[in-house]
Structure formats: structure tokens, C-alpha cells
């Protein structure tokens, strides 16, 4: 049952990749074409994906690697014992597998233009993200049910499966966005 669940989550994520930042033409194309010629996932790929989901999805949703480039993920992976005020360290074997997984699926776009050379560790601090969310009022984010922009799933009801379509948005105490 658990494996079945992981596989379907994996499939959803692959499919969901197409919904990340619709205006991001390059990656959009990338996802579309990869879902057309989708190579079936090997058993190894599935195990790796399940490991990522479990380990990086224990405290928040397992963020889709496509939201940040490799150098962001590398910085995160190199500072896990002090990860946003908590300790998220892994054993060496899992650490290596996850770092490789993130690197393979990372965004090919830099996503940090205009950040003055800083390496974004938060998806929510990238200019792309800020532009997408500029109309979302601060009080919708800071309320107890959401806490911060890091809590994607509080508003994007299908975030964990990689889908961010507007009609799936439900903001606690405010309702749908459309």
C-alpha cells in the first residue's frame, strides 16, 4: 500500500511539473517534452523519490526541486544541521542520494536575478515567487493557519503532489482565489 501510494505521488509530481510557473517558458517546455517522452521510472528512481518525499517531507511538504536551481539546493544540503532554526541532518548515505536527486531535478533557470548575488535558500524569497504572490495580502500569510509562505499546502491544496493551479487554491478563512 505504501509503495503504491509513493508511486502515484511520483506520477502526480511528474505530471504536476508542468504547472510550476506557467510563464516560465523554458522549463514549461522542458516539463511538457519530458512528460511526452517520459522514460518509465526505474525501481531506483522510485526508491530515490520515496526517500526524498519521506525525509524532506517530514516537517513540511517535500518542495518540488524544480523551484530552485542546483546552487540553492547545494547550500541547503550543506547546512542541514542548522536548517531554518531546526536540525534536519541526515545520515551520510541518504544525504548523498538526496543531494543528487535535487541536483538532477533542479531548475535550469537561475531564478535569482535581482537578488544582488545572494543564493536563495527559500523558494519564497525568489523574485519569481514574489511576483506570483504580489497580490496575496500579508495577513493571509501570517494568520495561524498558514504561518508563512513556506507553508505552500495551506493555500495550494494539491501542493504536495506538485500542482499549483489557481482553481485549487483555498486560502484559510478567505476561500478560493478565483
Amino acid at each position, binding site marked *: 500500500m505504501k509503495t503504491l501510494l509513493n508511486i502515484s505521488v511520483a506520477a502526480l509530481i511528474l505530471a504536476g511539473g508542468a504547472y510550476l510557473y506557467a510563464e516560465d517558458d523554458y522549463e514549461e517546455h522542458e516539463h511538457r517534452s519530458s512528460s511526452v517522452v517520459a522514460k518509465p521510472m526505474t525501481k531506483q528512481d522510485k526508491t530515490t523519490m520515496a526517500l526524498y518525499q519521506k525525509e524532506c517531507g517530514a*516537517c*513540511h*511538504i517535500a518542495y518540488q526541486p524544480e523551484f530552485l536551481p542546483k546552487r540553492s539546493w547545494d547550500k541547503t544540503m550543506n547546512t542541514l544541521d542548522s536548517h531554518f532554526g*531546526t*536540525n*534536519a541532518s541526515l*545520515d551520510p548515505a541518504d544525504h548523498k542520494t538526496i543531494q543528487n536527486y535535487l541536483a538532477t531535478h533542479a531548475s535550469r533557470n537561475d531564478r535569482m536575478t535581482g537578488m544582488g548575488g545572494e543564493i536563495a535558500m527559500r523558494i519564497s524569497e525568489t523574485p519569481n515567487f514574489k511576483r506570483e504572490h504580489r497580490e496575496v495580502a500579508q495577513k493571509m500569510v501570517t494568520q495561524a493557519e498558514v504561518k508563512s509562505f513556506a507553508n505552500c499546502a495551506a493555500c495550494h491544496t494539491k501542493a504536495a503532489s506538485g500542482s499549483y493551479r489557481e482553481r485549487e487554491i483555498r486560502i484559510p478563512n478567505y476561500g478560493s482565489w478565483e
Partner: protein
Amino acid sequence: MKYLAIVAMFSMSLMAASPEVVQYMKELETAAKTENRSFSGFDAARGKEIFTSTHTGKQGKPMACTSCHTLNLANPGKNALTGKVIDPLSPSTNPQRLTSTKEVTKWLRRNFMDVYAREGTAQEKGDVLTYIMKN
């Protein structure tokens, strides 16, 4: 025969942890004896105190194990840092708990840092696991 089955059931419920984790507890016991010469076994009451008392955590703010796991271990908790729901910690409610030493050591390392801003001692880990097993 009936009697035997009852005895077996009784000792299983006493353990409430997989053989792997029971083995880990034995290692903690050995380590606790080295740490503290007067150590005389793990204690659920001390474990409860560890679990329910508030300390200055890694973030410099008041924090307790119960901040995320709640006072009733049979209930789901909520991660105080991220808001994500946490499945119950009680092994009798959630049979997956305390079945993997890898999981247990990983979370005790992280969670003692969260609450105590340091790693737990062998005795503290053994006490708190003994408390969790009884709930």
C-alpha cells in the same frame, strides 16, 4: 496453552517496540551505566518530566516535546515550527512508531536540539523512550 498465550501477549504489550529498538534500548542502558555509576534502570516518570517540561530551545524560545507532539501521545500533533500535522507518537495507537532505530536516533538527535539545544544523554533518551512506550 491459554496461559502461555496470555503471558506472550502481556510481554509484547510491555515491549511496545520492535526487537531492533529493544536492542537499541539495551545499548542505551550500557551507555547510561558508563555515564552515571549510580544508574539503576530507565524510569518512565523521569521520561515524562523530560517530555512535558519547557526549556529554551535551539531557536532561543521556550519549547517542549509537547509543543509538537501534544500532551496526549495518542493524539496527532502539530509541528510548532511549520504547522504540519504529526501522526501520533504512541506505539499502541500508531504501530509504526519505535520500529526503526534509524528513525528513533535521527528524531531524538533533532528533537533534543529543538527543545534542549543540545543532544540528549543516554539516560535521558532511554527514560523518554520508556515513557513513550507506556503511552
